């Protein structure tokens, strides 16, 4: 089957399952994306200045572009959409600059476990339709990690830190090392700064120093030096996190495996309080592997994540839940969402 036929057939399945075509803008406002996704994102964006000096870019990703369109159209937009088009990313290899993306999204997803299943099901149906056999599916849930961290005895600052950097495995390793060795706050410097601390307590608390209020600075300083720091506890915490990230089992053994992990580490029984969405996925008639150390390369994933492989172990589709992205793109409130995309390049071979 040719790739054009592939996409035509896939789109047929998308439509049949109730998804409506969305055609997001090709040109986006670069500053808007930088403001929300960070300076590091600039590296992959193809940008130019228009006549007025405003910085514009070609859409780097159709999920982000579709979200922007959804927000712009406000309530008029359909919330179950599919897209089919090109995304453009800066790359050392010219062949990788233009990427054809074919995928779907459910914005404002109300019933999480139903919609997670719906997205995965539509994707597997469309893969079936183009007659690709013997696929395997891998799933994870990045919210489980957050639930685990919330249950551990560690300083609040560390809790936030570990959650924020879960999606950057390499830096995350550094963090664990720092936590394990307690090399965080240097007592000598703290003594030195305490002097200054008392001085600052006596000045106008509303005064701003480079956009930060004096009250904000001294309260964070105070919190920081009062952080409990127990070497023994930290070592134990790191071991639990490392154990957790080794979990890898068939999805139907999920509960048993997590219970073993909880018992071995003497954790509270209610650490993982919501497995309904994951368990619901096992209703699919496919072989599904669950892994905790998975879905860690994209910052915006917040819940269930999955990847689908063909018989030669190439990734042919991936997706997941991203409940925070629309808010970070400027929606006034949390709008939950889940989506997936098919990798046509790997389908061809």
């Amino acid at each position: 089957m040719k790739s054009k036929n592939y996409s035509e057939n896939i789109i047929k399945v998308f439509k049949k399952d109730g998804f409506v075509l969305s055609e997001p803008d090709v040109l986006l406002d670069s500053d808007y994306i930088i403001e929300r996704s960070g300076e590091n994102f600039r590296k992959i964006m193809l940008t130019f200045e228009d006549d007025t000096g405003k910085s514009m870019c070609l859409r780097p990703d159709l999920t982000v572009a579709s979200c922007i369109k959804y927000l712009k159209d406000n309530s008029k937009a359909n919330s179950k959409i599919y897209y089919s088009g090109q995304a453009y990313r800066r790359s050392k290899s010219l062949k990788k600059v233009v990427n054809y993306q074919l995928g779907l999204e459910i914005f404002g997803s109300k019933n999480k476990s139903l919609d997670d299943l719906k997205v995965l099901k539509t994707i597997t149906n469309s893969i079936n339709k183009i007659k690709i056999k013997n696929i395997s599916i891998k799933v994870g849930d990045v919210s489980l990690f957050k639930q685990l961290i919330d249950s551990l005895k560690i300083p609040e600052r560390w809790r936030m830190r570990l959650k924020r950097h879960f999606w950057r495995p390499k830096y995350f390793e550094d963090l664990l090392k720092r936590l394990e060795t307690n090399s965080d706050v240097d007592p000598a410097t703290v003594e030195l700064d305490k002097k200054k601390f008392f001085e600052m307590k006596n000045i106008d608390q509303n005064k701003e120093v480079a956009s930060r209020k004096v009250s904000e600075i001294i309260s964070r300083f105070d919190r920081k030096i009062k952080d409990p720091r127990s070497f023994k506890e930290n070592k134990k915490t790191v071991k639990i996190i490392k154990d957790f990230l080794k979990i890898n089992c068939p999805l139907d053994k999920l509960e048993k495996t997590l219970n073993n992990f909880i018992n071995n580490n003497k954790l509270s029984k209610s650490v993982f309080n919501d497995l309904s969405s994951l368990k619901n996925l096992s209703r699919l008639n496919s072989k599904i592997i669950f892994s905790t150390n998975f879905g860690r390369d994209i910052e915006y994933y917040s819940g269930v994540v999955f990847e689908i492989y063909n018989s030669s172990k190439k990734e042919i589709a991936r997706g997941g839940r991203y409940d925070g992205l629309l808010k970070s793109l400027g929606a006034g409130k949390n709008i939950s969402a889940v989506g997936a995309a098919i990798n046509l390049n790997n389908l061809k071979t």
Partner: protein
Amino acid sequence: MKSLITIGLPSKGRLREGAIQFFEKNNFKLTSNGGDRNYFAKFENYPNIKIIYLHAKEIIQRISDDTLDIGISGLDLLNESAANLKQKIEVKKKLDFGSANVVVAIPNDWIDVQTVADLEEVSFDFRDKKNTRLRVATKYPNLTNNFLVSKGVTQYKLVTSLGATETYPFIGSSEIITDITSTGKTLKDNNLRILKDGLILKSQACLFYSKKKAAKLQPFLNSLK
């Protein structure tokens, strides 16, 4: 030496002084020290070597586009350059002047911020509370991006500055800065403090040459001590 060699020297400041001394020490005496409005010079008794005085940043660019064969400039400026430009330039030798560090500096009164890890945390706070990103003023956008991202700081945005970057946090143009400093005095005078692990690059003056012309230049380069 038969063919012509073109050398670029910094047109002002400590780098210029150091570069002139470096060649004098090697028994190359300049006919003009670029102090006046004369941008060209020669070495006495070496008619085949042409000297051009240029801005230190331009020396890197002109080696990469073949205007210059050899140049003296700062390592910071080479490392800040785009990858395709860096590929064309080789460091022959690190010289014993112009040493300075590119660093991350924050307002002295941010006593709760000592390390880059603190900064990372504050930058998240900043985004959550004010819904904008922490602004970093710099003359070194590339070095700054690579450094901050490698240290886990992602919630910031750059403000490019051409000079007097130290003032930015106090005139409301940015919250923190990265800049080059040799003694740290200017930073201190402007109520800024270097983060404990905020060293981005140890820089110094270097003798650079064009990779493409290596064969032709080696005899001359090897004669320099």
